[in-house]
């Protein structure tokens, strides 16, 4: 299958070809790939794409998957409306 038709990050519409292009340019740290292509910055926060990218990096570098660091996990776990956060803050204080 054409790499341009394989979606790796569905939140930000990033393909396998995009990822491999960055490898060729020398970017193999998932944190760098995230910042250039926005993979892992969408609503799923990398839950879908990070493991796929981790596997691709491992293949490219010839290392074990578990030796490739994934992106830093950041709050929130799921999207919450700012209004809901405000209302919660007002009620609790």
């Amino acid at each position: 299958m054409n790499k341009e038709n394989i979606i790796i990050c569905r939140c930000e519409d990033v393909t396998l070809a995009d990822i491999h292009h960055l490898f060729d340019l020398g970017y193999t740290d998932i944190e760098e790939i995230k910042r250039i292509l926005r993979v892992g910055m969408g609503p799923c926060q990398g839950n879908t794409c990070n493991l796929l990218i981790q596997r691709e990096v491992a293949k490219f570098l010839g290392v074990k998957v578990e030796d490739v660091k994934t992106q830093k996990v950041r709050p929130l776990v799921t999207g919450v409306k700012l209004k809901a956060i405000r209302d919660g803050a007002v009620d609790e204080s």
Partner: protein
Amino acid sequence: MRANYVIIGAGISGCSIAYNLALKGVKDIVVFDKSYLTSGATGRCGAGVRQQWGTKMNCELAKASIDFFETAKETLDYPGDLEFKQDGYLILAVTEDEDKEFSKNVVLQNSLGISSRKLTKEEAKKIVPHLDTSKIISATFCPTDGHLNPFTTTDAFYNAAKRLGVKFYFKEEVKEIVIVDNKIEKVITTNYIVEAANVINAAGGYSREVGLLAGVDIPVYSERHEILVTEPIEKIQGPMVMSFSRNIYCQQVPHGSFIMGRSEIGVARNHSTISSWKFLDEMAKTVCDLLPPVGDLRVTRQWAGLYNMSPDRQPIISKTDELPGFYIACGFSGHGFMFAPVTGILLSEIILGEEPSFDIHELSMDRFKEKRDYTYEKSVV
């Protein structure tokens, strides 16, 4: 390894300094970073670029940098998108003091060729229709301020520097700077020993610590500033909306998401970048009050970065008298990203003994020795 110049820090300042030195023909430049490209303050910043400042020096640095950004994609020959957008900054005057202060700031800015102007509430409402103008007295607006992608812009400087022969080493921490008879001899990193006589400290949040490695006491400290991003929506807001007294900056980036941040009163002076629930609460209250429809957006992610604060909240771009060959670009007080083009130009001029593009005595280390009253920048969130 041998090098002519060792630059510590691959944020935008370090990349811009490397690029400018290499552009002037300097050879054998190496850059070390203890993590990945833009891992520090640059990659964590609010992505805004503005010229509306309260000090002449900051206005001049900002204007020259915006002028550079306008053609940066071509100048740096970057294939990607820098996402430069000039939809302005709308700065809200909420108190009587701010209203008066901003009138003075606009006069200063205009005298330096910055096209800012004072707006009534009604005029501000036309520019940002969802702003609750009952909360403000007036505003100032500069249409050429705006947004720029910190990752791709740093990547552009990084690639341009690499093409000019600069060598970058990531995940390499500088552990020791060896000084003999008041001369720099070596820089020791995680894996390398580099013979070098010149070191440039562009270490952002860690620049004080890097200074101490060379025995140079730089009067800066770091503090955590938090920030969040929402889900993307269609464009509803052009400019960055900012208020110093309400402690908020908030913009919709070209991607469609909203980025917003604030500072924490009395935050500890350290290197913590942990996210807090308190920030979320305070940020949500402020943004829902000033820009009510933004309250309907979901927060996708929050994070934090370090402001490296100088005593007068203006940068330190300087040589050091006590240690020849040791140069500093730090203390940007939250604005290193937007000043980066001039940072590289000015420090390369200082290093090569050229006539500086601006009168930069207000940026030198000497200003702290003279113990006079500094020109203090008030316009900081």
